[in-house]
C-alpha cells in the first residue's frame, strides 16, 4: 500500500513570495524602460499601453554560454529523406551560421514573453519620478460648460421626464402584489349578469345567483377603486445630472529654446513638463493639438522629432518664438473657438534687449489670447540654492517677473530636476481663488 497524500488543500501560491520578488525586480526594470520610452516616445504616446519585453537586464540571469557562429559543431538529426554522406547544404541566411534547426543546448527562447502595461501602470511609473502624491488631486481649473446627462431615476420631477417603462413596471408589480382584480374578471361578471337578466323569465334560483353576482361585482369594483391602476408611488422620473463638459478644442503650444545651452538634461526636463501638461489637458479636452515651436535666433514650427532631438543651434532671440506663436494663433487657432495653452521652457539665455520685447508681447497679446501661459526656466541643480526664490536671475526671468504680478494667467517658475516638475506643475496650475474669464 503506497502512501497517498492529498495536497490539494495545502495552501497554494507557494511561489507567491518568489513572484513578488520577481515583480519587484521587474518593476525596477520597467521603470528604467519607461523612462527610456518617455524620452523617445512622442508626447501623445506616453499616455498609452506599452509592452515591455522580459527578460531585460535587471531580471537577466547570465551564464557562460557557447557563442553561435564560432567553431565546429556536430549535430545528429532525425528524418533524413534524401541526403547521402558528403552532401553539402547551404546554411540558412539568418542566425549567424549554425545548422539552423536542431541546435542542441541553446536554452529556450523567451522572446515572446512580455509585460503589457496598461495606461494606468505606465502613468504610475511615469509619475513615480515626478513624486506625484495622488493622480486624482490633479485639479481641474475653470470648468466651463455643463451638460445634463442621464443618471438613474428619481421619484420627483417634471411630467416631461416621466419614465413610462419604469413607472409601468412598478405599477404592474404593485397590482400583482395587492391582487387588484383584473379587467377580465370584471367583464366575466357583468356578462353573466347581463345574460341572466336578459332571460325572459328569472327563476328564484337565478335571482339568488344574480344577487350573489351583484354583490361580488360591487366588491371587485370597490377593490379596483381602492387599488388604482397607476399610483403616484409608481411614478419614476428620469434623473439628470449636470456634468462638466470638456471644452471641445484645446491647443498646446510648446516653446523651447534650443540654443547650445539646452542639453540632453534640459530637454528631458522640458519634455517631462510638456508630457505632464499634455496629460493634464487631455483630461479636459476632447481634442488637443500640439504645436512645437523651437527657436534660436529665429523661430520655426517643427514636428516633435525635430523639437527634441535636432541639434541645430545658434544665437538666441526669444521673442521670435512668441511672434511665431502669435502668427500661428491668428492663422489657425482663433481664440474664440480654441482654448490656448502655452508652456515655454528655456534656460533663460537671451540676446540683450530682447527680454523687454518678450515681456511686452506677453502683456499686450499673448496673455489675452491664452487661457494660460507658463514659463519654466530650467536651471542647473547647483543654481537652485542661489536662485531659490529670489527675483534675481537672467534678463528673461527679470523681465517676465514684471508680467507675473500683472496677469493672473501667467505663471513662471524654475526647475532643476525631475522631482521638481510635479510640485511646480501643481503650483502653476493650481485652482485659482477667483474664476477667471478670458479678456
Amino acid at each position, binding site marked *: *500500500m*503506497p*502512501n*497517498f*497524500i492529498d*495536497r*490539494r488543500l*495545502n495552501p*497554494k*501560491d*507557494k*511561489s507567491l513570495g*518568489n*513572484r*513578488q*520578488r*520577481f*515583480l519587484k*525586480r*521587474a518593476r525596477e526594470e520597467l521603470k528604467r524602460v519607461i523612462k527610456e520610452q518617455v524620452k523617445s516616445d512622442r508626447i501623445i504616446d506616453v499616455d498609452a499601453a506599452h509592452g515591455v519585453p*522580459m*527578460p531585460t537586464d535587471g*531580471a537577466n*540571469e*547570465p*551564464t*557562460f*554560454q*557557447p*557563442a553561435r*557562429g*564560432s*567553431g*565546429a*559543431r*556536430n*549535430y*545528429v*538529426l*532525425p*528524418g*533524413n*529523406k534524401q*541526403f*547521402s*554522406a558528403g*552532401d*553539402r*547544404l*547551404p*546554411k540558412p541566411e539568418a542566425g549567424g*551560421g*549554425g*545548422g539552423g*534547426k*536542431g541546435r*542542441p*543546448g541553446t536554452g529556450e527562447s*523567451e522572446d515572446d*514573453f512580455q509585460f503589457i502595461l496598461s495606461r494606468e501602470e505606465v502613468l504610475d511609473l511615469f509619475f513615480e519620478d515626478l513624486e506625484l502624491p495622488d493622480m486624482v488631486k490633479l485639479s481641474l481649473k475653470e470648468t466651463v460648460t455643463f451638460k445634463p446627462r442621464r443618471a438613474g431615476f428619481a421619484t420627483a420631477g417634471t411630467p416631461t421626464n416621466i419614465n413610462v417603462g419604469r413607472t409601468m413596471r412598478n405599477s404592474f408589480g404593485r397590482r400583482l402584489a395587492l391582487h387588484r382584480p383584473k379587467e377580465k374578471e370584471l367583464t366575466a361578471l357583468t356578462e353573466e349578469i347581463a345574460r341572466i337578466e336578459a332571460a325572459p323569465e328569472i327563476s328564484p334560483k337565478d335571482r339568488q345567483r344574480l344577487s350573489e353576482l351583484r354583490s361580488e361585482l360591487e366588491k371587485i369594483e370597490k377593490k379596483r377603486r381602492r387599488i388604482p391602476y397607476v399610483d403616484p408611488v409608481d411614478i419614476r422620473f428620469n434623473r439628470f445630472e449636470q456634468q462638466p463638459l470638456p471644452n471641445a478644442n484645446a491647443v498646446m503650444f510648446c516653446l523651447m529654446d534650443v540654443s547650445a545651452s539646452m542639453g540632453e538634461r534640459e530637454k528631458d526636463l522640458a519634455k517631462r513638463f510638456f508630457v505632464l501638461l499634455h496629460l493634464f489637458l487631455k483630461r479636459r479636452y476632447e481634442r488637443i493639438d500640439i504645436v512645437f515651436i523651437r527657436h534660436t535666433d529665429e523661430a520655426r514650427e517643427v514636428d516633435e522629432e525635430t523639437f527634441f532631438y535636432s541639434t541645430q543651434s545658434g544665437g538666441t532671440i526669444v521673442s521670435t518664438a512668441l511672434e511665431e506663436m502669435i502668427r500661428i494663433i491668428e492663422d489657425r487657432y482663433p481664440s474664440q473657438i480654441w482654448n490656448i495653452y502655452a508652456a515655454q521652457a528655456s534656460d533663460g539665455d537671451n540676446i540683450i534687449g530682447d527680454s523687454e520685447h518678450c515681456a511686452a508681447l506677453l502683456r499686450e497679446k499673448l496673455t489675452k489670447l491664452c487661457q494660460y501661459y507658463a514659463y519654466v526656466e530650467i536651471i542647473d541643480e547647483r543654481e537652485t540654492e542661489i536662485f531659490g526664490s529670489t527675483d534675481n536671475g537672467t534678463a528673461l526671468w527679470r523681465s517676465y517677473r514684471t508680467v507675473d504680478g500683472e496677469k493672473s494667467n501667467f505663471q513662471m517658475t524654475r526647475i532643476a530636476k525631475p522631482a521638481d516638475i510635479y510640485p511646480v506643475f501643481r503650483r502653476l496650475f493650481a485652482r485659482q481663488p477667483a474664476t477667471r474669464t478670458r479678456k
Partner: protein
Amino acid sequence: MARRATSGLLFQGSDWNFATLSRAYDAIETVALEEMGLSVYPNQLEIITSEQMLDAYSSVGMPLMYQHWSFGKRFAYEEHHYRKGHRGLAYELVINSNPCITYLMEENTMAMQALVTAHAAFGHNHFFKNNYLFRQWTDAGAILSYMDFAKKYVSKCEERHGTAAVEAILDSAHALMDQGVFRYRRPPRLSSEKVRERARERLEYEEQTYSDLWRTLPQTAESHDPAEAERDASERKKVLNLPEENLLYFLEKHSLILEPWQRELLRIVRVIAQYFYPQRQTKVMNEGCATFVHYTIINRLYDQGRIGEGHMLELLQSHSNVVFQPDFDDRRYPGINPYALGFAMMQDIQRIATEPTDEDRDWFPSFAGNGDWMETLRDAWANHRDESFILQYLSPAVMRKFRLFHLADRASERFVEVASIHNERGYSAVRSALANSYDVAANQPDIQVMDVDLLGDRHLRLQHNVKNGILLEEGSRDATLRHVRHLWGYEVSLAGVDPQTGRTLYECSTAKHA
C-alpha cells in the same frame, strides 16, 4: 485473447478516487516488482492541483526550496505559456528522494493516474535508485532534509542581513551553477542534520569570536627572483589544489571577502547543482526507462484483463504523444525527443534479446538472443549515462527507424556537410556523434581556475579551454564574469586557450568593466 483472464477491471470510467488509485497502484506494483524485477524506493504519491503543479515547476520541482526571484520569473514564464496554451503541464513530476515523491495532478483521468504511477513511481523511481550516477552522486535519503535546512538557512540570512544582500549572493552563485559541480570526483556526502547543525554552530562561534587583532603572521619578504616566483606559484597552486574546475567550490573555500554565511549560501547552491547534475546526464535513459516501464506494465495489465479497451486506447494515445518524434524539417521539431529515443532503444534491446537478426548478433554479441531482456535492461539502466548508453546500445535498426544523419558544421564554411547517414558506412559515426552530443561535460564550456596570487594583487585567473573553436557568447560571458568578481572581490580575468596549440584565443577581464 486466450491469455486474458477475467480478474476484473481495475477501474471504470474516468473519475478517480483513493480506492481506485490504491487498487491500480497495487496491480502495477505487482507487475513492476514481481514480473519486471524492479527495485524502488518506497513511494509517496501526492495529489496536487494544476496551480500547485505550476508552483512546483517554478521551484525547479523541489517540494522545498528557498525563495528567490528567479523562481518567480520561471513561474511567470511557465504560466504565461500555459495560459496562452503554448504548452500543457506535465502530467507528473517526480523527485529523486527516499521516499520517492510523485505528484499526481487532480485533473488527470483515472487511466492517466495509472499511467503516471507506472511511469514515475516505478520507472523513474527504479532508475533513481539503481543508476550508478545517482547512487554515487546524490543522497536520496538526505535531500529533503537538506532542502529544508537550505530553505530555513536562506530565510534566516534574509532576516539577519536583508533580502537584497542574500539575493546578490544567490544571483552570482546561480550564474555559476553550471560551473559548480564536481565532474570527476565525488563530493563529500551530505552530512546528517545533526553534524550540519554542529558545523554551523561552530561557524557562528568563529564568526563571533574572530578578531583581526590576533593576526600575527609576519609579512613575507618581497621576492624578485623569477625562479623563486615560479616555485612560489607552483607551491601556491598545489596548496589551492589548482587548477580547479568547480568555480563555486573554489570561491566558497578561498574567496577572501565572503563572510561565513555567504560561503554557506554558495555551498547550498553548489549542493543543489550537484544534485541535479546526474539528471542532466541521463535524460534519454531516465525518460526512456520510465516510458518503457509504463508501456510494459499497462500492456501487461491489459493482457490480464484489468484495463478496459477504451482506457487502453486512451493510454496508448497518451503514450504515442509522448514518444512522438517529428522530423528535423517539421515545424514542430524541437530536437531529439528523449522519450522517443530512449523508449525506442529500450524496446530495441528487448527485441535484440529475444528475436535478434544477424545484424544484431554482429553488433551486440554480448546479449543478442540471450532471452532475458529484463535483466539486460536493468543492467543498462544501472550502469550507464546517456552518452555511454547510446555509444553501446544504439543499434542500426533504431538509426534506420529514426533516419538519423550527422551534420558537420564549421563556422568558417558556408555549407554544412552531411558527414554520415544511417547506412553501413555511417552507423558507427552517427552513433558516436549522437553519443557525443549527450555528453554534458563535453558540451559545456570548460572553465577552470588557473591561478591566483593571494599575497599579491589577488587577481583571479580563469582559463577557458576552447573545444572545437567554440567561443563564449560575449555579452553573457562578461556579465557572468562580473558575478565571479562579485564573489571573489578582486579582479578576475578569463583567457580562452586552444588546448591543442596552447595559443590564447581571447582574453577578457573585469578590470575594464569595473
